């Protein structure tokens, strides 16, 4: 279809660089739960490394459903839940979100297993990286099925005991190398 005066395509992506300010990754953004939220509160923790070791000041952005599997904007979505969060990694590449275990959600691609969508930004990342983690033992999910079977375990969270009385699930993220995390086009 030819359109006159077609508007320009989306603006080119550029890296956030090494100096993404802590004032824009304030700790409050890493807490998705609000007083009175539904479901089980958990810690979603992770460690992120590149080819040469821990990645400091990686910016991780989490999108997920609420405890009942409702997506942001759905009718009846939990008003006491944020659906989106941001955390920056520390010098050891560690990050943490306080969130809930999401419910399974409806999706045109098929019913989704509980899952945590992550977007990763940082110095040297020219195009944001997108991936998705699942609770331990997940097998059925239309996005997980797009991943070669041998690589699927890399997208499963590990049970990492408790932290402050809450269940802790841990993601291991490797950006480049033999144990590289699978990433998606988005």
């Amino acid at each position, binding site marked *: 279809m030819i359109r006159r005066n077609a508007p320009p395509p*989306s*603006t080119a992506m550029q890296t956030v660089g090494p100096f993404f*300010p802590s004032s824009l990754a304030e700790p409050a953004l890493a807490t998705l739960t609000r007083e009175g939220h539904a479901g089980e509160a958990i810690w979603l923790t992770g460690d992120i490394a590149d080819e040469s070791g821990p990645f*400091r000041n990686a910016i991780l952005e989490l999108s997920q459903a609420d405890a009942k599997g409702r997506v942001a904007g759905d009718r009846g979505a939990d008003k006491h839940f944020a659906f989106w969060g941001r955390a920056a990694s520390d010098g050891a590449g560690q990050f943490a979100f306080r969130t809930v275990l999401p419910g399974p959600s409806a999706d045109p691609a098929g019913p989704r297993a509980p899952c945590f969508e992550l977007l990763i930004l940082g110095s040297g990342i020219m195009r944001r990286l997108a991936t998705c983690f699942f609770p331990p033992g997940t097998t059925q999910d239309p996005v997980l099925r797009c991943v070669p079977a041998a690589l699927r375990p890399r997208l499963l969270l590990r049970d990492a005991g408790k932290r402050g009385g809450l269940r802790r699930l841990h993601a291991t993220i490797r950006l*480049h190398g033999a144990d590289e995390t699978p990433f*998606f086009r988005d």
Partner: protein
Amino acid sequence: MRHDPPRERDQPTPVIEGYPNTARRTPAAKLLRRPLPRLLTAGAAPAMPLASIDMAEAVPGKPAMGSRIMVQLRVVDEDGRGVPDAVVEIWHANAAGRYDHPADPARAPLDRHFRGSARVASDREGRLALHTIKPGAYPVPDSGQWWRPAHIHFSVLGRGAVTRLVTQMYFASDPMLEWDRIWLSVPDAQARARMVATQLPPHEAPITTDIERLVFTHTLVLRGREETPPA
């Protein structure tokens, strides 16, 4: 909303020679294809604390060093429609080319009258005005002889996470653009040009504008367009 993948030539090559972090942090494997989940396409921009501030005057009555500027930003979708209530995050170096960040090793001085970051929302037409100073160029740490040209970082959150845009805005007639590996990493010349702000001649600046500011206009285009029935 439709979310077509961007054209390859309009986006940066992920690995840039002379920028070692790009090789260490770019996956070696091809990115996997998947259906775009509703989780990434649904919902308004996240609710975040916003503050309309003048970055050029972190301390009221004490202007920061540098040329005072105003950037009239418009956030649109790929149909050119204004995106209301987009969250726009801004950060940049001060006039001397120094970031207010503990990791910045530059010898250039900090300026406590300059506020290095802001977070604001677009209005109903997708517009917002940014009041700041023109940032300075700076040498890239540990890179040999590579300098970044003056630039402003933008992070934009629109409707649905897939519209997420992180980019940089540059200034016209800057000879340093042609030497910048990050700006040059976008293959298409027009796509590069679209990252460069347009300066308004001072006599054409809006009448309401504080005359002690140079005025620029700039458009950020987020991914996605409304489903339009074929004509």
